[in-house]
């Protein structure tokens, strides 16, 4: 059974329709990379999966919860869906450790000691154990993003959403972040990654979704889509970015 089901999803900002009749099925442990030109709707699509954007039409079912049902407790569902942002969005008034433990302590009512122990394990995993007591302002972009990943993982999510996680990074920082994401994929995390990193999509992605103009134009295995794109628009886009 698929862990994410999207049926006829549409999204409008006022009169501007940015997502049109999106359909997708994502299986557990799959890594989906969403590519496409700016303004194609790929970030909006991702943000509809945890309802950071209100959904205009259609149905989105996340791990059995229909989040388009107005009666659903969306906060509960979001606990199962981690999200990593392009701009990191760490809490600047809290230390790295506090950033990671805030959710588990306040939402999951985990005791502070347990939460900190787990946070340190996660920091170790992303290679930043020594930064536990630093403030976000003292970290580089790549370090911030790895902390943001640890923060999302601290809630024990079933799904991780990545919204252009390396787009705001200096080139030499990109590798560290992608490495953490690869590791996560290897451990079997279900991931949806909006990205411009075609290398990552090719190497780590199980499937690539190409979006343009608010539609899913084409989806296929990375090798297929990169070496043998079916659609003209996919070809045009890939010829520019590869």
């Amino acid at each position, binding site marked *: 059974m698929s862990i994410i089901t999207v049926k006829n999803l549409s999204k409008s900002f006022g009169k501007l329709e940015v997502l049109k009749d999106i359909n997708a099925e994502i299986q557990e442990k799959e890594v989906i990379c969403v590519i496409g030109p700016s303004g194609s709707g790929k970030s909006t699509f991702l943000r509809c999966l*945890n309802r*950071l954007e209100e959904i205009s039409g259609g149905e989105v079912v996340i791990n059995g919860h229909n989040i388009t049902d107005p009666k659903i407790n969306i*906060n*509960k569902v*979001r*606990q199962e*869906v*981690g*999200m990593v*942002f392009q*701009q990191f*969005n*760490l*809490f*600047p*008034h809290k230390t790295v450790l506090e950033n990671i433990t*805030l*959710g588990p302590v*306040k*939402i999951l009512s985990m005791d502070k000691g347990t939460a900190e122990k787990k946070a340190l394990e996660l920091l170790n995993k992303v290679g930043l154990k020594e930064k536990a007591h630093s*403030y976000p*302002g*003292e970290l580089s972009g790549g370090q911030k993003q790895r902390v*943001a990943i640890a*923060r*999302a993982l601290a*809630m024990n999510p079933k799904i991780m959403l990545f919204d252009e996680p390396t787009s705001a990074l200096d080139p030499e920082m990109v590798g560290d972040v992608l490495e953490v994401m690869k590791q996560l994929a290897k451990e079997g995390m279900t991931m949806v990654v909006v990205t411009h990193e075609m290398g990552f999509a090719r190497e780590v992605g199980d499937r690539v979704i190409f979006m343009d103009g608010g539609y899913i134009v084409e989806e296929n295995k990375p090798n297929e889509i990169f070496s043998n794109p079916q659609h003209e628009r996919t070809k045009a886009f890939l010829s520019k970015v590869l």
Partner: protein
Amino acid sequence: MDVITASIPILLKGLQVTLYIFVIAIILGFLIGLVIALFRLAPIKLLNWIAKVYVDAIRGTPFIVQLFFIYFGVNSLHLISLNSTTAGIITVAINAGAYFAEIIRAGIQSIDKGQTEAARSIGFTGAQTMRYVVLPQAFRRMLPTITNQSIISLKDTSLLSVIGIADLTQQGQIQASATFEAFKIWLAVGVIYFIIIYLLTLLANFVERRIQVR
């Protein structure tokens, strides 16, 4: 000099009244401001409207008119009976509350939307996001403006002397007419206000440094 030394204890008694009213009123005013700011930002039209009317009404009328309205106006209805101190505290609080509301609203709105999105994506409710993520950051940014408004409110308390509250200004008035030494007395009153406000500024600077975002 004898005049001053004889008057100082009396003026300090007045200062006590001033500070008593100020401290209670400013805390109440801050709470009013917080509630009104949240009303203003809530996704509920009626609450937005209440907040807007409140802020506009207070900002659009002189302090002294508000004071007379509450002390003489409300009391004249004989529904409740407010003594002058209570009326004074209420007036300073609702007056400061309107200005605090605008300061807090601007502070909240100055926090990047990404902060709210990050908190919500973790699973925090709107209220938890405010409490743990937005307000602590907003408060740091608001502090200089809050200090400023607190100083203005402290000075506004001097107007309470007109409804007979025995504050620092009122005691100054009594001393000045009793001793015929208006120059010295009013100079002393001014110096006392200045020192208190200066101490308040130092306190604010200290707090600001302590909670600075690294």
